[in-house]
């Protein structure tokens, strides 16, 4: 498939996913009701439908669809950028501790009994803080391979944060806080409302826009640092900017949706299969595919059963065979 056709296919996939997601759910909404409610919402005229219909579309299902698109697109873009930055196909956006930091922040918020927005804010701050610490340590330990130092620091700090999460679970009240923490860590968009959407959108769009703006320079990352610098690419600045963009996206996603794995790992591979490894085309394709992919998974999560299926579990169940199939298809080659 030509790169242009691949990008078009990704866009079509996303639009189809949106149509499907808006049309199905636990609350029965006929396509006609859906169209009427949409029309009424857009024109500001009364729809004549029961109030719950409008509420489902504009307060529940709509925000949730947007949140899934944002989180999926952001994580896929961040994963694509990270896989290029670290020259490793097994990297996902949580490599530098953004997820663990955000998770610890949220768990601390639950433990402190903060209101929901407070939990989300603390979570976002935790994700940014964790990566800032990792980056600072990596920068202090100069010498040797800068990228490898960063990866190792990320792994070490991430596991320390994991221990912090474990401690918080241990201290939690087993009747209220522990289930809340457990459900939160499994990932879910069940609670997303309009109020959560704005901060999520701001952070994810800012981070994704930064990554997209850098995509013209990203191809140079496959070269050794000296060669890239000889071509006039400021590798240190580029690396820092990519980390900032990916961290904004990942921390905001985890703050809003809990830990959603696999999207940032699998979708970049799928996008490379569609449009090849060149970043100017690859990054927007991955973002579109990621948005559609997570939206489909979340649609499954909210329609399969009366109770929610945790998102993190579904992405793993869907992502694992998918990834193995990709490996078989590409024979491990990913350049």
């Amino acid at each position, binding site marked *: 498939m030509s790169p242009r056709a691949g990008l078009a296919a990704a866009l079509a996939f996303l639009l189809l996913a949106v149509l499907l997601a808006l049309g199905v*759910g*636990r*609350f*029965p909404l006929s396509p006609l009701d859906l169209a009427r409610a949409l029309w009424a919402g857009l024109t500001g005229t009364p729809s004549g439908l029961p*109030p*719950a219909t*409008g*509420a*489902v579309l*504009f*307060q*529940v*299902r709509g925000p*949730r669809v947007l949140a899934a698109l944002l989180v999926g697109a952001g994580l896929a873009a961040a994963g694509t950028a990270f896989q290029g930055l670290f020259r490793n196909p097994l990297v996902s956006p949580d490599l530098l501790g953004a997820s663990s930091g955000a998770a610890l922040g949220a768990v601390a918020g*639950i433990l402190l009994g903060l*209101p*929901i927005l407070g*939990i989300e804010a603390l979570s976002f701050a935790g994700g940014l803080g964790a990566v800032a610490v990792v980056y600072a340590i990596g920068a202090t330990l100069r010498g040797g391979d800068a990228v490898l130092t960063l990866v190792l620091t990320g792994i070490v700090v991430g596991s320390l944060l994991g221990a912090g999460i474990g401690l918080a*679970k*241990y201290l939690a*009240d*087993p*009747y*209220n806080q*522990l*289930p*809340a923490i457990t*459900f939160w860590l499994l990932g*879910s968009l*069940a*609670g997303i*409302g*309009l109020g959560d959407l704005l901060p999520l959108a701001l952070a994810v769009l800012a981070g994704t826009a930064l990554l997209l703006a850098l995509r013209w320079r990203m191809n140079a990352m496959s070269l050794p640092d000296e060669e890239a610098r000889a071509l006039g690419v400021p590798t240190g600045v580029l690396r820092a900017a990519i980390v900032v963009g990916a961290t904004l996206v990942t921390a905001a996603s985890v703050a809003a949706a809990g830990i959603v794995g696999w999207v940032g790992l699998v979708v970049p591979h799928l996008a490379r299969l569609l449009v090849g490894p060149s970043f100017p085309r690859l990054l927007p394709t991955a973002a579109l595919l990621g948005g559609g992919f997570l939206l489909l998974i979340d649609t499954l999560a*909210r329609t399969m*059963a*009366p*109770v*929610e299926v*945790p998102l993190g579990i579904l992405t793993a169940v869907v992502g694992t065979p998918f990834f193995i199939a990709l490996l078989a298809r590409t024979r491990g080659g990913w350049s």
Partner: protein
Amino acid sequence: MSGIPGAPSRRTLLIGAAALAAGGARAAPATLRDATGRDLPVPAAVARVFPAGPPAAILLYTLAPDLLLGWPRALRPDERALLLPEIAARPEIGRLTGRGNTANLESVLALAPDLILDAGSTSETYLSLARRVEAQTGVPYALLDGALARTPETYRVLGRLLRREAAGEDRAAAAQQILDRVATRVATVPAERRPRVYAALGPRGLQTGRGGAINVESLDLVGARNVAGEASGGLATVSVEQVLAWDPDAIVATDARFAAGLRGDPAWASLRAVREDRVHLAPHLPFGWLESPPSVNRLLGLLWLGHCLYPNLFPEDLAAETRAFHARFYGRPIDAAEAARILAGQG
């Protein structure tokens, strides 16, 4: 959890199989039979009891507060203010069962308990844990049934075990009276008139208990139809959309902030139960009235729930009921202002 139809017969379990040499002779020494078939003599005088978890601590406090060695977790000031000051101030000793042990067996032994008391699920998991702790510590371990409907029997057994038969009988009779009162009134309501209720648990109100979950045991006892109870299971997360699809007649919430924000949240505000003002915030002092922890504190919650769901069937003055319950079960009378505060879910 308990109360599952078809479960093995729910004799009170003390180390495996039942246990107390009951019989008419009141002074007969009670024995505990452990799983290996040994008959352990119940200590002639039980003076120090280690509660294995919050449900056991509350059960014991309401019957024999002086025997309670400490609390699984230290009480908060607002909880402490409603209980006997000297007992409420006892130290934090961790939990032995439930989800995750925080008590250290050596610390348990250092407290030199005559008895370890647990109340709650009598599943194999807890039985084996009881046996193991008993083998390691040499302290008799009594596991009582924590099902709300079996509270009277549990009180009687505990009374015999602690040689406090009169107090056990008193609490048992009071518990039976509440259970019977609720059951007979609810029995008059035809099935199709019973309210469909959504239990909104957790900070977002999106956790709920499915059929058979201990968190919503009270709903069954007051004859409410739990909208999430069609499938059995424990705690689960649902979406607002699913709640809108269920369209419950009433909502029972446990988080004050969540309940207060419902009207201002457009997604929830379109619900019939919210529009018609049938959202009930469960009081939480000194212990949760609906759940958390699932112990005898839920008895008073049954009356409250009945009053919320069937105002005509439950004409009694809840404040007076609350004061009577506190005086009898928590051993510390409260005044009208305190009762009103508790009922309002404040504090």
